[in-house]
């Protein structure tokens, strides 16, 4: 496991020790700042509760990520296929990102309800532009030598897009998906803050309101761990795809 190398482990332990030192030294009350030991205990004791809400949030994130990535991927391909479409659509794409997505969360709750729908929509919207933009930029920058070679070999434009430009752009798509893996949980959590009855975002608000700060921290840690796991899964998936593309 690369995550457990000394270079990661040592500062982690040092950080936790510092945290516990501040809490113990300043005699912080647990409803202001609980120490890592207390948070660890809560993580363990409330594991069923946390897992229950985490599953809901995970479902929202995965669906939002999958749909957003697929839509972004398809949009980028469409734009790469048609330069005219790219000229028309580009300003709209930039504008869609200029809209403060968080401000839309209440409207999404109104439109898509208190359930999964509004959270998926938030996650989707928040990742759509980074994926589209990263992939489209990569598709537009295929090395000239690859394109020339393929044209001389008699490849159709569709074939060049599929077999040359797409795999050449996979690193770009991958960097977009990496960003998306980090953004999608933010979208889902915000969606849950605005209106939900389940999920880690809902649990955070609830715990905060009842001064169960240890539970809130525990929920934050679960979200962070989920995000890291997602990031790694995206990475592994992309490498797997890259090896087998158009082989």
């Amino acid at each position, binding site marked *: 496991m690369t995550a457990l190398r000394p270079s990661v482990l040592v500062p982690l332990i040092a950080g936790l020790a510092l945290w516990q030192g501040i809490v113990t030294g300043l005699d912080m009350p647990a409803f202001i700042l609980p120490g890592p030991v207390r948070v660890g205990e809560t993580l363990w004791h409330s594991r069923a509760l946390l897992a229950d809400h985490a599953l809901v949030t995970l479902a929202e994130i995965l669906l939002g990520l999958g749909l957003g990535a697929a839509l972004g991927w398809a949009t980028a391909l469409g734009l790469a296929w048609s330069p005219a479409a790219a000229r028309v659509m580009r300003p709209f794409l930039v504008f869609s990102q200029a809209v403060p997505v968080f401000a839309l969360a209440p409207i999404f709750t109104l439109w898509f309800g208190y359930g999964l729908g509004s959270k998926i929509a938030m996650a989707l919207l928040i990742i759509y532009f980074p994926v589209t933009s990263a992939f489209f930029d990569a598709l537009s920058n295929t*090395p000239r*030598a*690859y394109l*020339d*070679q*393929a*044209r*001389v*070999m*008699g*490849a159709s434009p569709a*074939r*060049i897009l599929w*077999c*040359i430009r797409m*795999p*050449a752009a*996979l690193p770009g798509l991958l960097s977009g998906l990496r960003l998306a893996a980090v953004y999608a949980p933010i979208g889902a959590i915000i969606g849950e803050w605005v209106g939900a009855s389940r999920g880690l975002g809902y649990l955070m608000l609830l715990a905060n309101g009842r001064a169960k700060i240890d539970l809130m921290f525990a929920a934050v840690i679960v979200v962070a761990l989920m995000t890291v796991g997602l990031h790694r899964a995206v990475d592994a998936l992309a490498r797997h795809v*890259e*090896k087998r*593309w*158009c*082989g």
Partner: protein
Amino acid sequence: MITNAPALRFDGRVRAGQAVLAGPVTLEAPAGRWTCLLGPSGVGKSTLLQCFAGLTDGLDIEGQVQGPGGRVALMAQSDGLLPWLSLVANVTLGDRLRHRRPDPERAEALLARVGLGDLLRRRPGALSGGQRQRAALARTLYEDSPVVLLDEPFSALDVATRAKMQDLAAAELAGRTVLHVTHDPAEAARLGDHILVMTARGIHTVTGARDPIPRAPDAPDTLAITGQLTRHLLEAA
């Protein structure tokens, strides 16, 4: 043996906007023969290859390009090997791009002949510059095209490997129309049925030896033509 290899002919000049990239010039590469094209850098040799390869985006051609008609194989100066594919998959790329069934056995045989038989499953990133150039040569030979355009195809090779690859290319491409851009007079003297020197003033034909190619590097004729070409290029500079 290829029997339907067409002749190539270019007559005119090539511009990109205001800049003249090549010509005015008349170039002829006879059907089924090996033509070498020498000349100082920047005179437009690669541009003419591009015109024959149909890579004319952004170029204004004032004049005529005749041939190649059908499919062409181009070995450009940059090898264009795709970093995500193995060597075998790179060599058979053309077939996959044309929706045809690739022949990995033939690709492996060609890679073995260029001396890369132990590296079939490697990616290009793991190769040296000379190995990459030989992989690109194998890909060009795999294309099995009646017209073959070579742009400094042996420039990254050591002397012994270069001589071997020249022999291999001469054998594999016999009967095809080959237009071969090179900076090496000795290479042109070995391989050229016809040898052309391109300068700013136009194209000049240097009478080659009558021996069939590839000629021995130390044959008197080869050495004499090497010297003659070198002098010609010196005078043009």
